[in-house]
């Protein structure tokens, strides 16, 4: 019980009603057990369950002692030496390149809006927040419009080629172009990188930077030795926030390419779960592999959220 009780009367009330606060938490906790914890465990139970010999569909095996590792073993074999390995490497490459671009573009933007935007700061802030209220699929659809064979991009390129009388065949941007998919990922996720970084940069006390300059540091020195170290957690936080969904993304490559050349790991999961009726066990095994891979990122993110809410408490 809290020690800073105001009066004995309250102590008695609270003492009698010990069940009150757990009672408040109960519906939410039950909901999350039934619709988060059980489903989470069901992924394991189904990936390592038995295959129904007649219906050829997965039956969950809830007891870990009877787990059958055949399906997940095959998935691992595919990962190390099969087609799935190629897809996983491609996903890694896409995510790393896209994240790098997010840092290179996002850092200057967040830095400018948080520290140098001056009088129009609110407007800049509104503009970098705008993508949050526009649906991701709408933002991707806008690029599908622009990049379609008869879209604006090809029109402009044809016009420009016309000025210089260069022969120009409009390419089909949406048929398996790596650059288009990576740029789509950057376009889709960069706002989610900028915002936490903005918050981290915004928290840096101006006095700290002035102190650095007063002590004789140049602007560049101040940036590299004060601002950058103080914003490093914001960069890491932003990276985790964008990398987690990017590793499981399937809609961006599907919309902007749809070709097997640009298939990502999430596309394989989507294929087994949403496009076949008997792929449940394989889909579950692929999801477990994905979770093993991103567990580190999830734990990092979990700890930073937990730390933030502990700080809010104090």
């Amino acid at each position, binding site marked *: 019980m809290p020690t800073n009780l105001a009066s004995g009367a309250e102590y008695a009330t609270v003492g009698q009603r010990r069940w009150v*606060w757990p009672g408040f938490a109960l519906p939410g906790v039950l909901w999350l057990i039934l619709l988060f914890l059980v489903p989470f465990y069901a992924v394991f139970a189904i990936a390592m369950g038995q295959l129904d010999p007649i219906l050829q569909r997965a039956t969950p095996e809830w007891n870990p002692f009877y787990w059958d590792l055949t399906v997940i073993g095959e998935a691992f074999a595919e990962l190390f030496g099969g087609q799935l390995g190629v897809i996983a490497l491609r996903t890694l490459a896409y995510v790393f390149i896209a994240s790098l671009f997010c840092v290179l573009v996002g850092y200057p933007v967040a830095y400018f809006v948080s520290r140098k935007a001056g009088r129009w700061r609110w407007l800049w802030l509104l503009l970098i927040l705008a993508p949050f209220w526009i649906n991701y699929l709408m933002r991707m659809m806008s690029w599908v419009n622009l990049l379609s064979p008869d879209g604006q991009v090809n029109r402009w390129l044809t016009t420009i080629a016309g000025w210089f009388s260069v022969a120009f065949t409009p390419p089909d941007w949406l048929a398996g172009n790596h650059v288009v998919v990576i740029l789509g990922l950057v376009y889709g996720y960069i706002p989610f990188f900028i915002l936490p970084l903005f918050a981290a940069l915004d928290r840096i006390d101006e006095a700290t930077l002035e102190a650095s300059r007063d002590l004789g540091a140049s602007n560049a020195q101040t940036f590299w030795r004060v601002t950058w170290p103080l914003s490093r957690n914001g960069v890491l936080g932003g990276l985790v926030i964008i990398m987690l969904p990017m590793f499981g993304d399937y809609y961006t490559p599907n919309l902007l390419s749809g070709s097997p050349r640009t298939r990502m790991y999430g596309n394989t999961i989507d294929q087994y779960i949403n496009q076949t009726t008997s792929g449940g066990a394989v889909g579950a095994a692929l999801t477990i592999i994905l979770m093993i891979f991103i567990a580190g990122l999830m734990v990092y993110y979990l700890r930073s959220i937990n730390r933030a809410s502990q700080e809010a408490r104090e």
Partner: protein
Amino acid sequence: MTSTSPSRVRSAISNPWGKSRMLPLVTLLYVLWSIIPVGIAVLFSFNSGRSRSTWQGFSTRWYVGDPAAAESVLYDPSLRFALNQSLKLAILTMLVATPIGVALALGLARWRGRGVKASNLLMLIPLVTPEIVMGVALFLVFAEVYDFVPFGTWTQFLGHVTFSISFVVIIVRGRLFAIGRDYEEAAMDLGASQFEAMRRVLLPLLAPALLASLAIVFAISIDDFVISQFLIGGAESVTIPVQLYSGARLAPPPSLNALATILMVVTIGAIVVAGLLFRALNKRSGGEGSAIESVAGLEM
């Protein structure tokens, strides 16, 4: 920082690509790059022709035009159903997830005993779980375990509430810590019971957070794609984002852009209304912090 001392001007002239010029330029280009494609998509929802790349004049035909042709959002059944489904899910989710989340936040903040740590962890994990993982897990559990729940609106609703609860807890908990227990204790010293103190003191103080939760849950539910798609039942449970996903590559008419634009306006509308009410309530109950910063913080 914005003062223009002579040396600063001189350095800006001698080095126009110095940091002071590059930063606003990069930011401006970024903002243009992020807004213009969407702006063009919105523009072409008002095209009078069928093309999504050649401008043929202004018209609202893709929004409300011609019942007989059935090609506007209002009269094309598939587009109208998607709009209905998205709104229905968002409103249901908002009304169910908010009270559950508020109660959970109160419980977790004040319950001192065994189980609180585990419950807290259980509440936080959905926030860091990628949507595809949650989508697969919910799909499999409804397919193989809770198979009495039919795929469609029901599964989508249950899924949306599941990922929304934690957001409500985080929003409300921040406010709860800021309020502290002093006001309630004062009310109880003055003779109020615990429930009276809660109803007449704590709830009014929590009103801004409640409102913010309603708005955020509405926005994340109407915005959701992955969970809605994994838990879809059939044509009748297609939501707007699912419709955008399945229609975008099929050379659709500008009515798809119109549907997307409506979704954008509804989302922004919900946030703006909530922001204004939030400010009014916050002023009344003496809170601090601007609405825009709160909303920005919430996305985290």
